[in-house]
């Protein structure tokens, strides 16, 4: 380790060990990248995302409270509504005269259960394909959720629910005269229906299953937005960072901590995910236009070129902005970009500048290229050196 890096770590430790952390000082330091060592990044992100307060003395009680709260969410939203396992001897309290699977009342618990399953299937589809180039999310976590995996439990896990739901939708077929055929359950083997992805043995959970649970709880607690594709790409880097913390006391609680940090982060960027806000002042369309109006200020020639070729910001900036660039770079680079984004004072304004920087850094190619070539450049961004990009973005910010 270089002495420069060592002194940088020391700087972080100094700031973080103060009884009352100065947010401005911390932001400034984090903006140029947070060291991974000693769990510094995890700690800084938790402070920057307003999960941990600046008074260190409050941490332990707050963490205890929040982690208990998360356990409570799991109980309320996964454990209680789950159907009792159909084991012999287990009475089915969930099927009563008042409420049963065929209850047409929209407020019925069963109705909610079936609606939740739709959301769950959508989440499931997406989290299974989270960072397919990396083994991490397919690997088992060291800290499977004991509350969920306890063999004494008599409820249905999310994994079982997905299997059951896909099984149901696969075996019932209706012929043209309206007769429903249920094919023999012996013929279909549900676990294999998802065979492209390995399912770990009982008692083990892959990291993607933890991410799935976080998203499901979020969807349940925020029914107005529920789950939108792309949220998986926002949880991914957060969870990865917390679940690889060098400090095992923190790592053990990666799930709950990620949930709250994700919720806080979403409170700032959720408008991007809401369709009805698309054309409002806070929606994604406005932000995409902002990227172009900023570009116009900084590089008129390039702006004119993109206009002339009718390359709209929707073609690339939609993804850049909604996913905070998480699909454009490799995970370690995404995380480095997020250090700066989270540390930015007027958070995510800097994101617009990063997008602008990405455009101006390939301006010569863009000015040369035709529509097709340029679309390829923008959809498969050619520069992987994120430091270069962040430096350029900072220059743009300073040149105001």
């Amino acid at each position, binding site marked *: 380790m270089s002495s420069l890096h060592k002194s940088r770590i020391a700087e972080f430790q100094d700031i973080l060990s103060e009884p009352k952390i100065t947010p401005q000082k911390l932001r400034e330091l984090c903006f140029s990248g947070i060291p991974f060592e000693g769990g510094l990044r995890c700690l800084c992100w938790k402070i920057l995302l307003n999960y941990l307060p600046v008074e260190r003395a409050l941490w332990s009680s707050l963490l205890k409270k929040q982690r208990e709260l998360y356990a409570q969410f799991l109980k309320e939203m996964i454990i209680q509504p789950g159907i009792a396992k159909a084991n012999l001897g287990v009475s089915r309290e969930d099927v009563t005269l008042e409420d049963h699977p065929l209850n047409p009342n929209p407020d019925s618990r069963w109705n909610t259960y079936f609606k939740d399953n739709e959301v769950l299937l*959508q989440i499931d*589809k*997406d989290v299974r*394909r*989270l*960072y*397919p180039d990396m083994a991490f999310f397919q690997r088992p976590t060291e800290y499977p959720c004991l509350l969920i995996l306890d063999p004494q439990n008599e409820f249905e896990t999310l994994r079982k629910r997905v299997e059951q739901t896909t099984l149901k*939708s*696969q075996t*019932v*077929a209706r*012929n*043209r005269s309206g007769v429903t055929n249920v094919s023999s359950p012996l*013929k*279909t083997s549900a676990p294999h*229906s998802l065979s*492209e992805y390995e399912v770990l043995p009982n008692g083990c959970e892959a990291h993607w299953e933890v991410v799935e649970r976080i998203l499901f709880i979020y969807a349940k607690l925020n029914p107005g937005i529920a789950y*939108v*594709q*792309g949220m*998986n*790409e926002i949880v991914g880097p957060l969870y990865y960072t917390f679940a690889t913390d060098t400090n095992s006391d923190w790592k053990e609680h990666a799930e709950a901590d990620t949930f709250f940090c994700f919720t806080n982060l979403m409170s700032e960027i959720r408008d991007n*995910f*809401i*369709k009805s806000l*698309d*054309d409002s002042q806070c929606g*994604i369309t406005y932000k995409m236009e902002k990227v172009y109006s900023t570009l116009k200020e900084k590089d008129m020639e390039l702006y004119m070129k993109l206009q002339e*070729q*009718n390359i709209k910001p*929707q*073609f690339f900036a*939609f*993804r850049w902005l*909604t*996913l905070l660039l998480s*699909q454009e770079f490799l995970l370690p680079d995404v995380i480095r970009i997020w250090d700066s984004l989270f540390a930015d004072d007027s958070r995510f304004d800097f994101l617009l500048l990063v997008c602008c920087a990405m455009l101006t850094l390939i301006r010569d190619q863009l000015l040369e290229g*035709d*529509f*097709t070539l340029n*679309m*390829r450049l923008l*959809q498969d961004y050619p520069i992987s050196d994120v430091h270069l990009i962040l430096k350029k973005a900072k220059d743009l910010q300073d040149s105001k």
Partner: protein
Amino acid sequence: MAKKTYDLLFKLLLIGDSGVGKTCVLFRFSDDAFNTTFISTIGIDFKIKTVELQGKKIKLQIWDTAGQERFHTITTSYYRGAMGIMLVYDITNAKSFENISKWLRNIDEHANEDVERMLLGNKCDMEDKRVVPKAKGEQIAREHGIRFFETSAKANINIEKAFLTLAEDILRKTPVKEPNSENVDISSGGGVTGWKSKCC
């Protein structure tokens, strides 16, 4: 101006529920490969493939859209100006088939009137998991007067055929232009986008 390497430019669009395999269908056609581990498409993606039909070099500009409802405001803006739309469902997913009529309505509302439509029932290699009979696909296609293929991006069934057929159908409707007419206006169907094929 650089020499143009094609005679015509067709803009195509892939739509359908999320997870039916739109990206895989496109990837099979553009790169002749299959990948089970595609991340979900957010917003819109884009590929190019040049094919030769009736002695003409045709550049296909194919747009791949996100399937989830949320993205519709973003994706419907591409409908206008599209000359061909492929509507994809998954033969192992009944819901994706039920939604066909919703997608067709979307086309009616947002696309050019004379757009060529095509229905694809994808994942036809998974016969043991099939819930949508081929006859049902054929029936709905017949009702709407559009072409229909069952495809498999994985087993490479009918993918190329589907794209080429769609391109041929568009070609048939395209007014014959002088071979040296430099700019091909792909928005000739009344579209607003009108990307001009400048130097390529």
